[in-house]
């Protein structure tokens, strides 16, 4: 088994306009590796939703990407407020985003459901007041 390719991104929580730079870069790397375009698209959308979430809700965080021979793993780690009710947060249309976020085109309550939809595995570890780690896997074979 060869070692995975690992990339770590700092997600700036103060600048909504630059959110998505990590996803853009990950997408570029996946393209260079010659992965299937639909797999790249799914991983990129999930990562982008996660990045937006970290900026909207958690003042940023860290995105760790590991590309294995058979899968892409994305770990999104933040030290934000945590999610009090994960099941509720996972339901489509539920959002705690502020009105100004909606004016920017986000906060429709589709982020987490979308991340689950586009990935093969997703787990959420969260503690109120401590932060949230979302782990996502997209299989490539």
């Amino acid at each position: 088994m060869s070692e995975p390719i690992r990339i770590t991104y700092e997600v700036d929580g103060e600048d909504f306009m630059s959110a998505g730079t990590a996803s853009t870069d990950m997408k570029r790397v996946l393209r260079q590796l010659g992965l299937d375009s639909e797999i790249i698209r799914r991983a990129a959308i999930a990562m982008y939703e996660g990045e937006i979430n970290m900026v909207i809700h958690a003042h940023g965080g860290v995105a760790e990407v590991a590309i294995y021979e058979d899968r892409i793993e994305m770990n999104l780690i933040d030290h934000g407020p945590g999610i009090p009710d994960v099941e509720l947060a996972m339901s489509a249309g539920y959002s705690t985003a502020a009105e100004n976020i909606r004016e920017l085109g986000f906060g429709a309550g589709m982020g987490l459901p979308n991340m689950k939809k586009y990935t093969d595995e997703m787990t959420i570890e969260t503690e109120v007041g401590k932060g949230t780690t979302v782990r996502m896997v997209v299989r490539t074979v």
Partner: protein
Amino acid sequence: MRKGLMDMTIREAAALLDAEVLCGEDLLDREIASACGSDMMSDVLAFVKEHSILLTGLLNPQVVRTAEMMDMSCIVFVRGKQPGEAILELARSSGIAVLRTEYRMYAACGKLYAAGLRPHASEKI
């Protein structure tokens, strides 16, 4: 299978919308298979298939990021919205054509629909 539907090029869409091409002149002969009109990027990320055109009145760089993640090749800003240079630069680096039309959302979508560009068959929720 797609009886009654047709693909069109970005150039043809631009002509139908009397649109100004703001960037991506070299991409105008790309085919688009579908279109989506929305100011809510969350919904675009949830429902849209690739090779689509995105019509929006929302004006911020996340419109370009969204189109990029979705593998969309063209953004149309409706209601005469004029994107700034930061948005156009991001679009250029992402290989996305940007158009601007004076038509409002409903009319712009209607013109493309009437010309045969349809949503994906699975679009009804």
